[in-house]
């Protein structure tokens, strides 16, 4: 459960037995494929999820950057993002463990919708906690969860966002731990979540490795993925960690600035790998955005899915070991990347994913050979945000959007 000094199990005592039970189940079913768990998981990922996702050469980007840019198309997974890999794995694991109920929290709603889908598919009752403010900002996702039969519980405490929803889900779990599994949505939280979520997403790099060999005859020179909590990142990196010649680039949300406003407790970015300090949050020791007292800062990113003050402990460790290079890409560059992929390749990426394309543009001179970018999700969910954020800036490659000034 440790990655160097990171990781661990910093949770209330009431949850420890559940964490231990989960650790045991993880080892039996996920690591050792007991009862054919991993076989069923992979079959369902194929049939229900649509795996394998393609590895596609991006012709225009390759020309622009004078190298071979390949796109790993996680945006084509059911639900529109890599999130399903993990949600499906955990809900299935809960079934194997004999749990009869699933809970999860969600901020922007991506993990919530993936969990709701997986729960419907596997016929598991599901409750999803979501801050009231987030509910109002992400109504289409709330509706999707309800359509999938999940119970969406508004959390009114505090500011009504992800942090409060996490606390509320922890509370539910602390009270229901014997019958309920808490589906954590990234490679964060106490052990075994970081390794388990990584293992469920590792199918991304497993496929990537085979596909890039088939298409280019060798391994990639770089693998690039955006990083918030880091689940798509570790999914894209996992099978390349031992290949020392493959550069692994984790692109964080640089937000509007890497500076912090300690007075207000606000970091206008989510670059915990680049700028964070070691600390303990949500059950694990990792790199965090925190003030000098250890209070967690409010993070910020144009993409709500990267907007988290922590990061997976394994990524933090790989950065300390110089195996993974963290790069911060700011909101403006991410938006430009969003528009570039949309209008030159015909793929509208999630704003999270767009950061990886901002990286290609800003670090073009460092690119060479084969560069694989993990297209972690599609941007349909971000249309309104893209309009507002594009209008607020001068983005040279954006289409004329005057007709959308009042929203879509």
């Amino acid at each position: 459960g440790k990655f160097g000094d990171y990781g661990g199990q910093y949770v209330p005592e009431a949850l420890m037995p559940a964490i231990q039970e989960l650790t045991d189940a993880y080892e039996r079913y996920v690591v050792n494929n007991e009862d054919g768990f991993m076989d069923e998981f992979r079959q369902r990922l194929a049939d229900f999820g649509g795996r394998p996702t393609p590895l596609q050469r991006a012709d225009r980007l390759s020309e622009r950057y004078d190298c071979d840019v390949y796109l790993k198309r996680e945006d084509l997974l059911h639900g529109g993002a890599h999130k399903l890999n993990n949600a499906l794995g955990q809900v299935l694991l809960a079934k194997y463990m004999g749990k009869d109920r699933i809970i999860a929290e969600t901020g922007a709603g991506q993990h919530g919708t993936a969990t709701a889908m997986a729960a419907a598919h596997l016929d598991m009752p599901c409750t999803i906690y979501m801050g009231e403010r987030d509910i109002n900002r992400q109504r289409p996702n709330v509706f999707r969860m309800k359509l999938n039969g999940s119970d969406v519980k508004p959390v009114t405490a505090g500011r009504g966002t992800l942090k409060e929803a996490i606390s509320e889900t922890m509370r539910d779990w602390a009270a229901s731990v014997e019958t309920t599994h808490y589906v954590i949505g990234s490679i964060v939280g106490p052990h075994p979540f970081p390794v388990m979520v990584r293992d469920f997403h590792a199918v991304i790099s497993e496929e990537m490795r085979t596909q890039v060999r088939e298409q280019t005859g060798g391994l990639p020179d770089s693998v690039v993925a955006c990083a918030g909590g880091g689940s798509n990142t570790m999914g894209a990196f996992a099978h390349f960690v031992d290949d020392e010649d493959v550069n692994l680039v984790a692109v964080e949300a640089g937000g509007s600035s890497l500076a912090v406003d300690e007075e207000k407790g606000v970091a206008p970015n989510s670059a915990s790998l680049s700028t964070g300090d070691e600390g303990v949050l949500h059950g694990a020791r990792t790199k965090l955005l925190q003030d000098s007292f250890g209070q967690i800062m409010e993070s910020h990113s144009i993409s709500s899915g990267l907007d988290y003050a922590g990061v997976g402990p394994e990524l933090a460790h790989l950065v300390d070991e110089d195996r993974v290079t963290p790069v911060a890409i700011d909101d403006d560059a991410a938006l430009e990347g969003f528009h570039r992929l949309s209008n030159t390749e015909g793929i509208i990426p999630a704003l999270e994913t767009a950061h990886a394309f901002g990286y290609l543009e800003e670090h073009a001179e460092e690119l060479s050979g084969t560069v694989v970018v993990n297209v972690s999700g599609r941007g349909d969910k971000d249309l309104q945000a893209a309009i507002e954020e594009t209008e607020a800036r001068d983005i040279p490659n954006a289409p004329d959007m005057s007709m959308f000034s009042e929203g879509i």
Partner: protein
Amino acid sequence: MADSGQAAETRRSDGAAANSEIAAAFDDGPAFIPYLAVGDPSYEASKAYVEALARGGADVIELGLPFSEPIAEGPTIQGAIVRALEGGMTPELFFEFVEDVDVDVPLVCMTYYNLIYQYSPPGSDERGPEQFVARAAEAGISGLVVPDLPAEEADPLRAACDEHGLDLVFIVAPTTEGERLQSMMERVSGYVYVQARLGTTGAKSDVSDQTDRSLQRLSEWNVPKAVGFGISSGEQAERIVASGADGIIVGSALVDIVADGVDSEWSTAETADKLEAKARELAEGATRGQTEPAPSDE
């Protein structure tokens, strides 16, 4: 260092408190241990409230040092923490408060591990449990409760507590069993916080019979057993003590009064009076529990 090592060894062998004040609090009948978040809703008000609890009969007081992500707390205490943080509470102010507050019962600091892990005294570059515990001891704190620090991760903090003569209280949940129970028993000191039911903190009208079973599981521990989670009335306090608890811990029921005071704009004195009255009810209930026979099912 040699001394503290010895202290730890002593504690583990005999289960006694490292801190004599906490040990003393349980000597004299069942202990009533109230909780409030420091700085809720302001430094001054909070001081008046803590002093009122002492007047009401507290034997030990748990003082919450607010952390921004209180994952073990129910909505009531989370609300207190938000108010305290908005009021500007910091670890350093917390220690000043401890030095400042006029009570003569032992004070236990309840907080989350990141604040301990990150703590650095003013003017110092060094951070961590050792720094935190040193400052806490200096301010007059007798013990610590850290809800997100399981026994497995507690050794650095345990060592610092031993060095500075502080107790480290662990929470035993209804689900804690076997090796984990053992591991905690080896590390606990002062008292053990017996969680009366699953869930997070919060006042409930029913007190689960899980309490009885928990107390039985801990019957061989040589450390006082204080039961918390959901106690809100003198009657409940009485029942819990009659079931064999050495003390009761009450947080949410008191924080509710503070919250009502904020909502209803009571004066600090008015809220303090209500807190004192509630404390008295609970303390008296606990005392009754010890003298009455345990309630039967009849």
